[in-house]
């Protein structure tokens, strides 16, 4: 009777807890969405940066022309004259997702434009990602930790930086796909159900569609399987979790055109196959061990080892020979630069030049994950008490992601969910102990007589924020699946008993309980820490990560000043040039030019062809005539240059010039970097080398610059320029934006060759231009 009443009460409490969780999750989703809207409020609903413009253009094409044309699209408006096979070289996940959302909304007669859908895709998927984090952490440590982790992920600045409204890039959906793949893997590991294994493979397929970072998953999961095998935690659920994923996953990954046969041929995937084989061997060994007697098993082992070793060596020798025969050992350039951080700077300057690929500085860790940086070690310790398959996976995840985040600042993004999970676990455990202590102490104070459940151990326990207490299994650890009723009853029974006896009969450890004041203070401090985190995240989202990069603002004494030069220049190009005109610029601006100005470009941000980029770089570093020749051979009509000297915009082409020289010099040896350096520095003032003062980039940037203030003071380099008065012979200026940030030049057509004047002097033949006789006249083409 009493038990039934208690059961009813527990059901009610449980139901109430569920409803509360649901509403909290809903609020977390709303939070994740709204914190990313600062850029829309401060600027406008516009697509940011460079890469999102390409994705936006592809999505436009998809919505206009349908999916078959999208798969078969050969883009001739970029990488002129090579073109680019977009269907086969783009990760289609993001564009297909946004296209599907647009199509769905439009078929429901909600007429949102493609741009709106693209801008808001990222915040929506970050809400989904926080829900996925809740699910993942719930599998590892329980619902409380799940909710905390989800709340932390909704706000963590590292993730916000790549998923604000308007940052329409692959990571927006890829992080969601990553977390949900991990969740489904852990769920399969915990339950051993093939249903989740299939879902896992489908989620992995979505991840492969979305981002090149899928290789992280296909290497992390095999590593975890290997770890489980080596630590003796092999079970049949492990087999069910891993083997279908590998086979189905490889099959599905090969379906994506950009991956194709790489799914079985590149070294990034070999780890999964290797572990697949190892897993089968281990499964076989366990099976045979199960059906044989121990003596026979020993015999079997000796036999197999002697024979198998020979076979193994042969196979490994063949494999090593195959892999070693390729110069990069089968790895792609980007993966190699992750494993060996110095690789890119030695061999592939393009990868080294991208600012996102530089290693992060120490302060950026605090900026990006803030308070979580101290909670992560506590979470790691919490995962070891007790260690389950799921918690070992999360530990492995965070260790590997810390390494990769140290190599490349862009990969801080992969580290952020791991940090949130760990911190969620740590915070949840800490809160558990504090509230349990308070509840227990309160009950004791209010007069429960038989209260002696292992308390007063404050001497052993360090009352700091990041101490972790030993937990009873009533805390929602999930090692085995158990139905909710059973768990709830167990919980209830144990609560009742805890007030009477100290130690339980079986394997549970003693409850540690802190004194009341300590718990209250600890709780308050944790809340303050959380408040600090929230304040920092909101500040980071509002001030640091919401800049669209295409519109710049600054605060002068007159108020807000807006620099909209980029769009001004692209609009000018769009309205004042022919549709087929080719525009040359440095590769940073390629995507924006094709998307907004709708003109054919020579190189763009995809950077797949190093030689082509080197050609443009050489042209920018050469004197006018040579540059004209190069551009003319590429059919270029207009050259676009970004110049920040008048307003102090530091990311202009003169500051990027060193990369033009390096990349150009890497392919064309007549460009030698020391020619441009004075004392090891690139200078544009009077101390600059003559090669520098004569190169096209200098001339196009500083043409007529002296007219602005009479002295030609460059606000970025903070000096006066070296050569102030010069004329352009092969180019003419057609447009300069309001703040001189973008300058557009047109190639002058070559002059007609003059035959009449040549006849006066020695006319051997009717060859048009003889240098000797033309020297009297000012021939600009010399």
């Amino acid at each position: 009777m009493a038990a039934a009443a208690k059961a009813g009460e527990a059901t009610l409490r449980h139901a109430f807890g569920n409803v509360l969780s649901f509403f909290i999750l809903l609020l977390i989703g709303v939070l994740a969405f709204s914190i990313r809207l600062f850029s829309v409020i401060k600027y406008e609903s516009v697509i940011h940066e460079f890469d999102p413009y390409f994705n936006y253009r592809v999505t436009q094409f998809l919505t206009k022309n349908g999916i078959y044309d999208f798969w078969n699209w050969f883009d001739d408006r970029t990488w002129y004259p090579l073109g680019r096979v977009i269907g086969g070289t783009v990760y289609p996940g993001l564009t297909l997702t946004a296209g599907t959302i647009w199509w769905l909304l439009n078929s429901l007669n909600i007429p949102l434009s493609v741009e709106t859908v693209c801008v808001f895709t990222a915040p929506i998927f970050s809400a989904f990602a926080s829900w996925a984090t809740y699910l993942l952490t719930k599998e590892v440590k329980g619902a409380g930790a799940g909710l905390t982790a989800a709340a932390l992920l909704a706000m963590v600045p590292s993730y916000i930086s790549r998923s604000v409204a308007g940052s329409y890039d692959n990571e927006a959906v890829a992080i969601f796909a990553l977390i949900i793949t991990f969740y489904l893997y852990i769920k399969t590991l915990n339950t051993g159900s093939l249903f989740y294994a299939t879902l896992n493979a489908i989620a992995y397929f979505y991840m492969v569609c979305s981002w090149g970072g899928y290789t992280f998953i296909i290497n992390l999961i095999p590593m975890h399987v290997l770890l489980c095998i080596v630590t003796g935690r092999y079970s049949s659920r492990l087999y069910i979790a891993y083997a279908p994923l590998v086979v189905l996953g490889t099959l599905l990954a090969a379906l994506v055109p950009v991956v194709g046969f790489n799914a079985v041929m590149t070294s990034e995937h070999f780890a999964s196959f290797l572990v697949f084989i190892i897993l089968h061997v281990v499964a076989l060994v366990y099976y045979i061990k199960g059906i044989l007697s121990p003596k026979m098993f020993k015999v079997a082992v000796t036999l197999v080892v002697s024979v198998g070793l020979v076979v193994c060596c042969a196979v490994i020798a063949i494999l090593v020979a195959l892999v070693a025969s390729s110069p990069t050992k089968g790895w792609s350039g980007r993966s190699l630069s992750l494993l060996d951080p110095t690789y890119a700077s030695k061999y592939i300057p393009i990868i080294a030049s991208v600012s996102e690929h530089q290693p992060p500085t120490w302060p950026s860790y605090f900026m990006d994950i803030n308070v979580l940086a101290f909670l992560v070690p506590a979470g790691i310790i919490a995962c070891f008490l007790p260690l389950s398959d799921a918690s070992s996976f999360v530990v492995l995840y965070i260790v590997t992601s810390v390494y990769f985040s140290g190599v490349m600042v862009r990969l801080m993004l992969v580290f952020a969910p791991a940090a949130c999970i760990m911190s969620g676990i740590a915070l949840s455990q800490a809160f558990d102990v504090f509230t349990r202590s308070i509840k227990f102490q309160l009950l004791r104070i209010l007069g429960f007589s038989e209260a002696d459940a292992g308390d007063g151990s404050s001497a052993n326990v360090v009352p700091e924020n990041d101490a972790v207490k030993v937990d009873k299994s009533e805390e929602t650890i999930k090692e085995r699946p158990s139905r909710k009723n059973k768990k709830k009853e167990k919980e209830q029974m144990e609560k009742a008993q805890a007030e009477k006896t100290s130690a339980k009969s079986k394997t549970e450890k003693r409850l540690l309980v802190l004194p009341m004041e300590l718990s209250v203070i600890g709780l308050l401090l944790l809340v303050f820490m959380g408040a600090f985190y929230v304040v920092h995240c909101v500040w980071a989202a509002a001030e640091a990560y919401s800049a669209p990069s295409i519109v710049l603002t600054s605060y002068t004494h007159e108020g807000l000043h807006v620099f909209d030069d980029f769009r001004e220049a692209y609009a000018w190009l769009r309205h004042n040039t022919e549709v087929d005109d080719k525009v040359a610029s440095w590769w940073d601006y390629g995507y924006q030019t094709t998307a907004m100005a709708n003109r054919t470009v020579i190189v763009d941000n995809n950077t797949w062809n190093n030689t082509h980029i080197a050609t443009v770089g050489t042209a920018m570093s050469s004197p006018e005539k040579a540059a004209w020749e190069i551009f003319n051979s590429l059919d270029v009509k207009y050259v676009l240059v970004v110049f920040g000297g008048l307003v102090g915009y530091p990311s202009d082409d003169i500051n990027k010039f060193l990369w033009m020289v390096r990349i150009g010099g890497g392919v064309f040896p007549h460009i030698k970097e020391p020619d441009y350096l004075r004392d090891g520095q690139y200078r544009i003032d009077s101390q600059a080398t003559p090669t520098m003062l004569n190169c096209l980039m200098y001339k196009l940037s500083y043409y007529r610059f002296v007219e602005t203030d009479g002295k030609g003071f460059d606000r970025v380099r903070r000096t006066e320029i070296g050569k102030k008065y010069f004329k352009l012979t092969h180019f003419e200026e057609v447009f300069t934006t309001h703040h001189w940030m973008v300058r557009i030049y047109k190639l002058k057509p070559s002059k007609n060759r003059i035959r009449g004047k040549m006849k006066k002097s020695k006319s051997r033949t009717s060859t048009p231009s003889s240098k000797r006789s033309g020297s009297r006249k000012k021939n600009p083409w010399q």
Partner: protein
Amino acid sequence: MARSTGKDAQALFHSLRSAYAATPTTLKIIDLYVGFAVFTALIQVVYMAIVGSFPFNSFLSGVLSCVGTAVLAVCLRIQVNKDNKEFKHQMIFIPQIAGPTTRASFCRLCSLQFGAAFGDHEFPWINLDPAST
């Protein structure tokens, strides 16, 4: 020493065979199916070694679908095995059907898709190429 190894091997095979004979018939049927799937995959590998690997995608889809069938059948065997204490017997049949069905349909889809890229090699009657109309 070779003698004793030989005798040991014989004793080993004997005990293996007797232990295996004790498994229930349903599991044996599943094992037979797994063996058949692996055999099919091996045949395809041998064929590729003889004839050459073009078109590679048909080889890939064929081998991977056979291996996938084998793996999923092994998973079925694991879950159906009464000696395995970790699984509840009744609740798993639906996932068992769903899993292999999904995989089979994916594999057929993949082979079709791969085949369609080289329409005249694998499935000449398929004409999915929109440009050819």
